[in-house]
């Protein structure tokens, strides 16, 4: 069994030969041979049907049980199960039984003819072109023609007969010659093959022009990064006073206008800058002082070392004293003034320079301290001025508040007096209440009498109001 199956797996065309007696199979070889002839011209690669991408769901009954893809060149076994020709042949190599029901399959001649209705269903399935970049979609029966004859992305042989590489059909033009030769890029002098030239221009060539994605400006690609980080008016950036507390973070154009119009935090930012500069100066001075201290310590150490040497010098003088044992004390006193001037002279010469150096250092320190004092005074003055300004503002606000409070007090007192007057009037009206029925009893004359009395009373209240108003001015 395996020997007959081996050649069938190699090429799909030979599989049709054993089935040539079947009339249906006789028709199929012809189109396949035609396709083979056409493909020889372009020598395009064959389609891998197991990798095709199908559009929409595919009926489970049309899937090969072995490769789980829609049947390709389906064959039906004697027991009635259908598989791809390649799949069943590969499976029979291992075991001559049906993969589904394990019925023995003796020879290829036992294969059955597939109903045409199933073939039509398979041919009508919609698929996508397997080439990357091509978005063509058609039925499965037409994908082979598209792939081998019309698709521009199919890899075909290079026009140059000597070159064995493959190239996309749309780039394979006889006039251009071999598309895999090296050429130098006209912008950056880099060696690139002709096929890769377009992608090189679009992606990696540093000398080619590119446009900013935000403002649309066109420039050379290797300047694009700097443009985006510093100059692009549409790029995002922050106000330069963000350290002082400004939170504006918009497009660079807007930020520029914001800074020109006067950022609220500009003054504070500048003050912070000045303080930073002052801090730097102070740090430098502190460093210098530390250096000076170190130097002074070193000189003190040197002074301590010199007294040690002077006794050594006095050492040889002692033997001189031995010459006069009788008058040794007087001799010593006499010898010392003789030697002392020389020693002092030498010491003076040696000490002169360090003393001068120390004096110079002290003078420098004094000048620096004076500078520091001046700056401290300036800082104090600035702070006092700021405090005065803020205090003045606060005092003004307090005065305003006090005046408002006074006005409110006057208004409240006036309102209270008004309410008191109203209460007194209400009491008067209540006392007049019982009198009214007596007057009504007198008759119409009483009614007429009552009407003029009421306006009189109202006029009286008006007078009192005017009196109250008269009282307001002196209080104000």
């Amino acid at each position: 069994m395996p020997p007959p199956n081996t050649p069938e797996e190699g090429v799909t065309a030979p599989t049709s030969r054993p089935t040539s007696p079947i009339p249906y199979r006789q028709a199929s070889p012809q189109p396949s041979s035609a396709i083979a002839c056409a493909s020889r011209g372009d020598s395009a690669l064959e389609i891998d049907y197991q990798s095709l991408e199908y559009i929409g769901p595919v009926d489970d009954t049309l899937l090969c049980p072995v490769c789980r893809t829609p049947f390709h060149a389906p064959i039906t076994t004697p027991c009635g199960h259908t598989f791809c020709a390649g799949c069943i042949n590969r499976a029979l190599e291992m075991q001559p039984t049906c993969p589904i029901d394990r019925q023995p399959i003796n020879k290829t001649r036992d294969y059955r003819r597939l109903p045409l209705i199933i073939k039509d269903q398979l041919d009508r399935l919609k698929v996508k072109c397997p080439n990357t970049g091509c978005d063509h979609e058609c039925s499965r029966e037409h994908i082979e023609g598209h792939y081998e004859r019309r698709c521009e992305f199919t890899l075909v042989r290079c026009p140059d007969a000597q070159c064995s590489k493959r190239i996309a059909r749309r780039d394979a033009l006889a006039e251009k010659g071999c598309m895999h030769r090296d050429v130098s890029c006209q912008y950056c002098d880099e060696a690139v093959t002709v096929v890769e030239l377009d992608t090189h221009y679009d992606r990696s060539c540093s000398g080619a022009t590119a446009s900013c994605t935000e403002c649309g400006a066109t420039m050379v690609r290797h300047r694009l990064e700097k443009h985006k980080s510093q100059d692009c008016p549409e790029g995002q950036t922050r106000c330069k006073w963000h350290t002082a507390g400004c939170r504006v973070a918009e497009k660079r154009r807007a930020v520029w206008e914001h800074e020109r119009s006067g950022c609220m935090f500009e003054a504070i930012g500048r003050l912070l800058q000045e303080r930073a500069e002052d801090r730097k100066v102070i740090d430098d001075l502190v460093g210098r002082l530390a250096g000076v201290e170190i130097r002074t310590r070193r000189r003190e150490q040197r002074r301590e070392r010199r007294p040690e040497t002077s006794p050594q010098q006095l050492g040889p003088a002692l033997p001189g004293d031995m010459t006069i044992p009788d008058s040794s004390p007087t001799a010593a006193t006499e010898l010392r003034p003789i030697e002392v001037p020389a020693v002092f002279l030498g010491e003076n010469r040696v000490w002169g320079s360090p003393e001068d150096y120390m004096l110079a250092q002290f003078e420098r320190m004094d000048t620096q301290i004076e500078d520091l004092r001046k700056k401290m005074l300036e800082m104090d003055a600035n702070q006092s001025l700021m405090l005065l300004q803020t205090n003045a503002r606060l005092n003004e606000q307090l005065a305003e508040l006090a005046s408002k409070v006074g006005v409110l007090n006057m208004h409240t007192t006036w309102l209270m007096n008004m309410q008191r007057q109203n209460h007194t009037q209400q009491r008067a009206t209540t006392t007049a209440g019982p009198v009214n029925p007596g007057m009504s009893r007198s008759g119409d004359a009483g009614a007429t009498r009552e009407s003029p009395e009421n306006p009189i009373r109202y006029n009286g209240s008006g007078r009192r109001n005017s009196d109250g108003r008269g009282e307001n001015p002196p209080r104000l």
Partner: protein
Amino acid sequence: MSAQFAAKRLAKELQKINNSLPPGIELVSADNLEEWLLDIRVLDNNPLYQNQTYRLKFRFGQSYPIEPPEVVFVKLPDRPIPIHPHIYSNGIICLDLLGQQGWSPVQNVESVCMSLQSMLTGNTKNERPPGDEEFVRANRLRPRDIEFYYHDNNV
């Protein structure tokens, strides 16, 4: 071609597994198309395997699915080797479906897991295969190279 065939088949299987799996089967890891790890549980009321989870390791060759994959139980601190008359203590499984003769290209990872679930569910003997210790000590063959004699049609 055969290698691509196996890769394409496994890619389709993985896509289907990610969509849905039968109850009691879980995919643990499938970082590549050569070795997969799955967990299986016995959902029936078999007292031997109740509330237990077992780890399976699948190793696929270039000739999959024409040839069967290597399937063994993996021992982990929380994943014991099930006690079964046809499962050795080192995880090797004596099942004709996983052998050369019993395998079929129509089978897949799902069907193998379900067969193992059924194999465990149908067992009532709490014992290892006879000669388990000797086999584990002396075995030097890969699971695919062991030629088992499949004689038991009940367990």
